[in-house]
């Protein structure tokens, strides 16, 4: 209980409290703009958390994460263009609702479902993460190596169409992480006697370039001054019996989203689809999925917000990212000098429990800001791209420069941006690069330490828990392979996809 008390005391600081609405507002603005995903938004604002203390910076980033996840639904409903990948399933029924003149109701439903899914997800996170962290305190280097490998299986999932391309991206990330001094002996690697490279590649400029600049370059290709026409909004009010009608779907989808979020690589987009499909499978007579069914919007939004919270369990309790956004959060903590993992709950309870409380407040705040400013957020969708994307580049440059006041970091950002652009064009996913750059060093250090402690023998791989986690990693890859095979087969009867 003392952890909660310390968290509450830390949160009472005015500067921390102010970051909650600020993060939510920034997140909603980011999520409402098609192309600016939660990851891009978090990457853009990450460098500005350096001047803040860890809790304040973390609260800002979590606010952006949660706000963006909800606001992705706004363009999904109005334009059939999800603002973030996790809102893809929202468009399936949200846009048909808008076409029927019910855009206002669809937006209110998506807000309420996001808040309920997020609040329940935060509750489940605060119950499960400390328990897992307590259990993980007994882990040694073999278990940590196995967990890092399990986290690397995310790569198989986020690799999109081709798992091989995902692994190419990951190997590039591992190479980038290898630059500089090695973690055991301290010998220089791949630095070519360059003093800037000897210190290693800073994570922030790489992250900002890979996500921010590459997206800007892609969007700049097709910038035009043409505004897309939006649907008629209609009323924002929900009917009297909406709790009875939509409540069960909200609770069920929250559970599906949270559980799927805990699994490496599943993420909000897949969580949203899983919940949508389950809700559709259990449809009652009269439900019209794909034609503007409110339950479809509820399922997708409650699940993707709960999934975000689920993905924070491995991030906080084990120190390995559950998805791309939590990899950015992990990077923020590492840069702030905080080591995520089981020890964090004892070493910095105010940070962990303070962030749980902050997320709860962020969702309450999101409900108020979302309802009060809903007409303004709709306008954000239409910010002219000719101003937006050059500004994203300026923010990326400032953010990279501000890390160490080094033009070299801006060069790293530009190279990472060009690399990300070329990879995206050739359909190589960029997220595995970041995940491998964060998790790779954990895997390497624990593998080498385990080898040294076991005098060069691989017997430690067969310890019960290590072997179990490694089998889970193998199962995760097999599951992803099967899913890829299934999704590559056309299904003419499926109206949803």
């Amino acid at each position, binding site marked *: 209980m003392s952890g909660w008390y310390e968290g509450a005391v830390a949160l009472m600081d005015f500067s921390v409290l102010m970051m909650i609405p600020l993060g939510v507002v920034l997140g909603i603005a980011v999520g409402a703009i098609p192309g600016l995903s939660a990851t891009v938004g978090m990457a853009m604002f990450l460098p500005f958390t350096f*001047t803040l203390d860890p809790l304040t910076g973390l609260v800002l980033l979590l606010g952006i994460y949660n706000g963006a996840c909800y606001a992705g639904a706004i363009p999904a409903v109005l334009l059939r263009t999800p603002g973030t990948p996790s809102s893809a399933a929202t468009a399936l029924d949200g846009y048909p609702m808008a076409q029927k003149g019910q855009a206002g109701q669809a937006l209110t439903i998506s807000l309420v479902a996001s808040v309920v899914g997020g609040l329940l997800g935060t509750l489940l996170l605060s119950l499960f993460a400390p328990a897992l962290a307590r259990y993980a305190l007994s882990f040694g280097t073999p278990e940590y190596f196995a967990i890092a490998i399990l986290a690397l299986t995310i790569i198989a999932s986020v690799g999109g169409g*081709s798992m091989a391309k995902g692994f190419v991206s990951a190997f590039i990330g591992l190479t980038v*992480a290898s630059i500089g001094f090695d973690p055991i002996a301290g010998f220089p*690697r791949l630095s070519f006697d360059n003093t800037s490279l000897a210190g290693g590649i800073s994570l922030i400029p790489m992250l900002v370039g890979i996500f921010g600049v590459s997206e800007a*370059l892609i969007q700049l290709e097709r910038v035009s001054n043409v505004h897309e026409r939006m649907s008629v909004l209609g009323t924002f009010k929900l009917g009297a019996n909406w709790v009875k009608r939509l409540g069960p779907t909200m609770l069920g989808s929250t559970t599906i989203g949270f559980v799927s979020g805990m699994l490496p690589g599943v993420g909000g987009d897949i969580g949203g689809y899983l919940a949508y499909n389950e809700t559709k499978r259990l449809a009652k007579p009269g439900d019209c999925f794909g034609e503007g069914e409110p339950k479809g919007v509820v399922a997708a939004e409650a699940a993707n917000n709960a999934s975000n919270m689920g993905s924070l369990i491995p991030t906080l309790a084990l120190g390995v990212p559950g998805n791309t956004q939590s990899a950015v959060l992990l990077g923020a903590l590492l840069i702030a000098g905080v080591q995520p993992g089981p020890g964090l709950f004892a070493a910095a309870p105010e940070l962990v429990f303070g962030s749980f409380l902050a997320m709860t407040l962020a969702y309450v705040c999101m409900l108020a800001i979302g309802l009060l400013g809903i007409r303004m957020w709709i306008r954000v969708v239409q910010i002219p791209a000719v101003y937006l994307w050059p500004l994203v*580049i300026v923010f990326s440059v*400032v953010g990279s420069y501000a890390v160490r006041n080094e033009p070299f970091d801006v060069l790293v950002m530009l190279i990472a941006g060009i690399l990300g652009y070329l990879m995206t*064009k050739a359909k190589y996913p960029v997220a595995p690069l970041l995940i491998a750059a964060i998790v790779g060093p954990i895997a390497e250090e624990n*593998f080498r330490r385990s080898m040294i402690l076991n005098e060069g023998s691989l017997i430690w791989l067969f310890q019960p828990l290590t072997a179990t986690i490694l089998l889970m990693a193998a199962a995760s890859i097999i599951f992803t392979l099967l899913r890829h095979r299934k999704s590559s087969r056309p299904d003419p009867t499926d109206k949803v996809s």
Partner: protein
Amino acid sequence: MSKGSVIPPALILLLGIGILAASAGIRPGMLDQDPGPAFMPRISGAGLVVLSLYLFFDRERHEGLPRGRPLFKVLGTMALVLAYLNLIEPLGFPLATVLFLGIEMAIIGVTSPLLLVAAPVLLSGFIYYLFRFGLDVALPATRLFGVLI
């Protein structure tokens, strides 16, 4: 096999070979049981070589680079960012940003002279003051701008 589908795996193959070659020069670890500092780069290099060979036979279509005006926008932006990062310190952030935003907006199709001047000046000033005084992030400023703050 089209030229476009061969170039990415060929570049990956070259990268993999380059990493393997560079890792040959890394000093071995101090303990016999330690796989050594070159362990990770070698795995990465070997992985890239193997995957590049597989990807030579990959039939997935990719988008390819744009042509014409979109290509000009992308290449122009890349060159402009390179110039921008080299001008931030000598010119100071506000002036370098005004130049960057003005030229960038012209590249992507803004033609109104008023917008090309007013928007970059206002945005640059707003960002500078936001970071300098709102977030306490020190950005380089010229003496010319220094008298204004």
